[in-house]
Every structure is written in C-alpha cells, then in structure tokens.
C-alpha cells in the first residue's frame, strides 16, 4: 500500500510543517464560467483548484462562490505570482495577501512554481525560467524557507515547462529539484504535462526524468493540454498552453508515473478555450479510472480472490 505523500515526514534536514491532504482523486481547476453549475449540481469531484492571485480581491462574486464551493469540496490553492525563482527578495506584501487567503479558505494544499515572474517592480504574468546552478539553488531554497515560515505550512513546488536552456546551468533540472526538496522539506507537484513539454523541447527522456525526481516528495499531479510549434531548426517546440484536452501521450506518461507513485490527487488544468464543465469532469473521472486500474494491477493476489 502506498502511503499518501503528504503524510510522509520530510526527507532532509529541514523542519517539518503540519500538512493536510487532498484526496487521491481527480480534481478540476475552478473557473468562473462554472461557478453556478458547480454550486447547483455539487458534482462528485475529488477537489477544486484555484489560482491564488485571482482571489486576491476584496469581495464580490469570486469570494461568494469560492466560499460556498469550499464548504462542500476540498480545495487546492495554486500560486502563480510569488516569483520563487526570482533574483530579488520575495514581495512581502504579496506573501501577506497569500497568508490571508490561506487563512480564509484553509486549503488542503498550497503549491507554487519553480519559476520567476517579477523583476524591478514589474510583473510579467508568465512562468519564466532560471539557470540551474548553486546561486539559483541558494536563492530558491531561501525563498521557499521564507514562504514556509511565513505560511507555517509545507508547500509543493511544481516542475516547470520551459522553452530555452541556459549556458550558465551546471545541474540537471531533476538534481536541482531534488536538492531543493532535500534542503527545504517542501513537497513536489509533479506536472506531467510539463514533463512531456520540456522533454520534447529539450530532447530528454520523460520517463528517465520522472525516475530522477525525488518521488517520495510528490504530493499532487497536474495534467493539462499543450500546443505545437517548431523551433528555428524545425524541431518540435511544445507550448504549455492549458487550452486543450490532456493529450494521449500525457495520459500514458501519467500511468507510468502512477506505477511509481501510487494514486495521488490529480488536477485537470484548463485555462483557455474553456469547455462546459462536464468535459473537464470527464477528464478528472478518467484520472480516477487510471488510478483504480493501477491499484487493481498492483494489489496483492489474495485481495483479488
């Protein structure tokens, strides 16, 4: 039997923060287009996830609906604006807003990205890449320590989808993430679509990439759709666009990851070309089915008798 990742003690020398857990089921990104329907129908879904920054407003419909939906469903709050990979100190006012949001909604999970988005007081609204070397490692670890101290909880860090690499990098991304997890005690949000996108973009083996991650730290999985482009040499360049259904190749990679990890809370992310809610619910149920099949396949023989 697999122990839920969030219940495992942290592996490094870092202090352990209290953690709560999302159910090991399919979840759906909460979109304002679906607020009313979700309240009216109370769908059987593992959890809902929201982007923290969208709810950093004083009042109005966003808080009205999230407050009511939260009463019925587990939720995950996913930040996109902390700029954990940034060269500059964290934005203390933003961290305060985040602490207030987490205090208000008490989410089962909080996650952020291995990326940066702010520099010189300007917010660029994208998840930008950083080189993997000791300087970035020290900064990222200091920022995660700061976040976990301020929020008094363990955060999950998401592996990035990137389009370029840096000449200044001295470490593999998986080694970098492993060292961050070991030093800070943070968990890992394994974005399987990001693994596929980045593996195509950088000509890596996605299965070897997943095996090289600190898998004991994985507390949640993300699945999403991508778009296709090409680079200057005509090689495929995939874009982490979140505007399409999860691709078959990503479902296959998800099943591979589950064989290593066991069932985990799995989010269907959709941020563009938003379909009607049942379409997203069906993708979450597909994740549920894959988790059940994987459990059945790995159950001890006597349990099947």
């Amino acid at each position, binding site marked *: 039997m697999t122990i839920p990742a969030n219940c495992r003690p942290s592996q490094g020398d870092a202090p352990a923060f209290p953690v709560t857990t999302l159910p090991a089921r399919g979840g759906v990104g909460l979109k304002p287009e679906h607020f009313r329907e979700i309240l009216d129908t109370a769908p059987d879904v593992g959890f809902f996830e929201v982007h923290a920054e969208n709810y950093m407003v*004083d009042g*109005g419909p*966003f808080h009205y609906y999230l407050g009511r939906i939260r009463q019925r469903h587990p939720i995950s709050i996913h930040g996109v604006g902390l700029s954990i990979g940034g060269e500059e100190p964290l934005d203390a006012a*933003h961290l305060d807003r985040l602490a207030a949001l987490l205090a208000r909604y008490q989410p089962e999970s909080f996650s952020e990205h291995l990326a940066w988005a*702010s520099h010189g*007081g300007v917010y660029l609204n994208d998840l930008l890449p950083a080189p993997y070397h000791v300087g970035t490692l020290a900064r990222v670890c200091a920022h995660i320590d700061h976040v976990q101290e301020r929020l008094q909880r363990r955060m999950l860090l998401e592996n990035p989808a990137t389009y370029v690499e840096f000449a*200044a990098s001295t470490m593999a991304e998986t080694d970098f993430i492993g060292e961050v997890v070991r030093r800070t005690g943070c968990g890992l949000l394994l974005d399987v679509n990001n693994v596929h996108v980045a593996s195509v973009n950088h000509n890596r083996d996605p299965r070897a990439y997943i095996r090289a991650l600190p898998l004991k730290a994985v507390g949640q999985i993300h699945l999403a759709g991508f778009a296709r482009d090409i680079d200057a040499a005509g090689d495929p360049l995939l874009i982490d666009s979140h505007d399409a259904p999860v691709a078959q190749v990503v479902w296959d990679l998800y099943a591979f990851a589950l064989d290593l990890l066991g069932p985990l809370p799995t989010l269907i992310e959709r941020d563009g070309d938003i379909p009607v809610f049942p379409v997203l619910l069906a993708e979450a149920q597909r994740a549920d089915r894959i988790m059940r099949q994987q459990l059945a396949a790995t159950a001890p023989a006597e349990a099947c008798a």
Partner: protein
Amino acid sequence: MSAQRHFAEAVLAAEPLCPPGLMAWNGSDPARRFAVYRNNVMVSLIDALADSYPVTQDLVGEEFFRAMARLFVRTHPPRSPVLALYGAGLAEFIEGFAPAAVLPYLADVARLEMLRVQAWHAADAAPLGLADFAALLENAPALAATGFDLHPSLAVLRSAHAVVSLWAAHQAQDGTPDLTAVDPALPESALVLRIGLDVEIRRIPCATAQFILHLQQGLAFGAAAQFALDAEPAFDLPAVLGMLICGGAIINLCQPRREPA
C-alpha cells in the same frame, strides 16, 4: 545588469530581442524559443485588458484595441501579480493616444468599464437595516445632520459624453449594438453599484450624481441635498434616497466628515 533584468527587458521590448546566455539542445537560434515567452507575456496581458474593456474594444474594433493595448502594456506593465484591476490607467492613456482622438468619448467609456470591474471585486458590506432608516426618516433634523457611509462598490462618473447610452447599446444579447438613438456628444452621468452579485450601471441626472458624490465625500445629507436642489430645482430627493436604499448603497450612518464649502 542582472540576467533577469536582461530577460525581463527583452520580454517587453518592441523589437524581437533575445537575452544572452540562452541555448537549445539542437544548437538552433534561441530567439525563436525566447519568442514564446514574449508572446505569452504580451498576449496574456492584452487578453486581460480585453476582458476588462469589452465595450472599449467594440468601439474601436479588435485590431485597433489590441494594437493600442500592446503599446499600453509596454509603457504600463503590471506592478502587481494581482491582475484583476490591471489597466486602471488605460483611460488616461487613451486621452493621450492620438489615433483615438477621433472618438472623444472613448476614454470615458474606458473609465466606466474600469469602475465596473472595480465594483465587481470591491469589498462586501451589509446595507443599513430598514428599521434604522425608518427611525431616521421620522426625525428630520437628525436626517439632515447625518452622513452616510456608502457601499465600497459604489462609484459615480460624470462625463461630457453619453457614456451610459454608449455602454448600454453594447450590451445587446445578439452582439450588434443599436447606436441610432445615441448622440455621443450629450453629457451623461453614471451610477455604478454592485447589487447582489451583479454590477449595475445606471444613467442618473447630473444633480443626482452631484448629490451622491457629496455624500461619498462626507457631506451631511441635508447639505448634499441643498446643493442638488440649488443646482436642479426638479431634483427628486425621495426618489434618489429610495434608489440608494433599495440598492443597498447605504451601509452606515456616520458623522459628516466635511462641511459645505
């Protein structure tokens, strides 16, 4: 200059720059790959503006709006990761944007749309109870002397143009605005107020706009009413008070914060 400063400047640059130190596994020109970041940043921020300013976009057309928004993003990038209220300076930008000068009302329509977004996300506040009003309405001196705290979502816009009529004409369900009855050169005032979960935009007479602005600025009820009656003898005080009470716009009684000038 730091690596991230190079990167950030190249993301927002008008010309397709590529910061130093980038590479690709196949040795291809990293500028093509870096352009994905440039595109993500610019398109997502232009989309955010288009979401907040749908009527402004309708009035100038999508192509014009997106070209204007691109310039705005370059010169006024977000200063916060909270994008709900991003673009509050677009109306001022439009006032200085020569190609938009042929539509003199465009800036005020943008102003109205941003007030609507701000009202949408403004703090929640329970209206003053009807029992409190009933007691107050029986005591004329007390009513005249009190100030009102108004709902955080409430805003008034006074314009030299027909902003409410222009905005309302673009709310047609079939998406084809009927502008035949709108004279853009007629001055109009707007009341913006969130009622329940919806933001309402109403055209109000000039004296009503002045009255509500005076209340919002902390003048006593009696003094604000007197200003409105002096400006417009037909000012219908009971109707305006009824509208504010029914809309939940009055959330508290307070000491006046200002004397009549």
